[in-house]
């Protein structure tokens, strides 16, 4: 069974978002996503300052098996990227909700509420 913390929001493309106290949101990939991919071996994160449209491909995670795009769950600007994660990619497999990829400042914070909550995401992955 995949772990799906209650305090996060989820996109149908399997990203999670966590609200930070400064109004930004941290983004990573879900436990379900890392399980599907298997051992991760490569990561490309977006540049800080990049403006993203909702659903825009902005990062790449690759496992031994396959490459997968990571999409911006909401429109906004990248305010931080976890460059150091490339040296510890096993963290994404072991602890996907702490191994974050980037932080985003949403153009419209209300967009975040349109994403799935934990119960809806759990249902969507069956």
């Amino acid at each position, binding site marked *: 069974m995949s772990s799906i913390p209650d305090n996060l929001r989820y996109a149908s493309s399997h990203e999670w978002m966590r609200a930070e106290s400064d109004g930004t949101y941290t983004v990573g990939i879900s436990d379900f996503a890392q399980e599907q991919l*298997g*051992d991760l*071996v*490569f990561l*490309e994160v977006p540049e800080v300052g990049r403006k993203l449209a909702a659903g825009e491909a902005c990062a*790449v995670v*690759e496992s*031994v*098996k396959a*490459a997968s795009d990571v999409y911006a769950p909401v429109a906004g600007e990248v305010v931080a990227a976890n460059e150091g994660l*490339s040296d510890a990619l096993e963290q994404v*497999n072991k602890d996907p909700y702490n191994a974050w990829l980037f932080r985003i400042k949403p153009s419209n914070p209300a967009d975040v509420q349109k994403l799935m909550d934990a119960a809806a995401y759990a249902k969507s992955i069956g």
Partner: protein
Amino acid sequence: MKTTPLHETHRTAGAKLVDFAGWDMPLHYGSQIEEHHAVRRDAGMFDTSHMLAIDVEGTGARAFLRYALANNVDRLTVPGKAQYACLLAEDGGVLDDLIVYFFTEDFFRVIVNAGTADADLAWLGNLRSRIAPALNLRPRRDLAMIAVQGPNARDKTFAALPELRAAGEPLGVFFGARIGAGASERFIARTGYTGEDGFELLVPNDQVAEVWMRLTRAGVRPCGLGARDTLRLEAGMSLYGHEIDEKVTPLESGLAWTVDLKSPRDFVGKAALLARVPARQVLGLVLPPKGGVLRAHQVVHTPHGDGEITSGTFSPTLNQSVALARLPAAVAPGDTVQVAVRDKRLDARVVKPPFARHGQSKI
């Protein structure tokens, strides 16, 4: 979907199962990379029961295989000796790659790939009808197969299965031995598909779960097809459907060493191979560490024309991406080529495979 006699064992062990050539097979049991390292550093095992052993029995077995295979079975003179060979169509395309074992003049065994097994049987059956109608081709679906591979594979196999020691201990590389015959036969061969020492075992279907359990208890780690693929790729070995298929010849696939064109014997596909100079070849590519991951079907740009990656992955042993690619014949090891990866062109170094064997980097 077809299943092997170990299917329930894999499910119980929590394997992630995938469709491989119509068979429901383990991809991994948790971590593909850890399974890969287990084989390079210690001992791992694979359920390869989806592959098929075909016994070639009767007078004229050698003459039949001499004509059917691109490698020359006349090189097999010592009982038990094995050889890697391609089965070709008349146009030189590769129908399958296989290992042939010689035991006696009227008993050879070939082990073929899962996805091609039925077509191979039909092809060989037709050939037999034409040139050797008295010969018997016996598919051995009654036997299951386990490959035990790694630097400690020998010791752990003998610890788990002491009854195989007498036959297995004296085996040289690429030799096999049969213990018993018929329904209770066991078979042990010092062959594999990982670039490590080890054995391939055939045992009756109803005994294989017990054999697997004994090997597990002896410390042999169950490994899935994921690790099998990264191990064979590091070892520079071809995978049917990737480096080779019916549209390419072995001479364009890095397998010229398996084709005997020197002896006067005729074989299926020989005329086609002699009729054209190979324009392509298979070589290795390496990316710098953290440079991304090469994948099958990516286009390779070279000064001599474009090529294509046939298999690409992240190499757990080298900690960087490696690939096999079909490239124009003029490309040479040491060259730098460009691989189209998403919206980028990445510089890759051309090398002669293998990338790794016996636990060590070869590049």
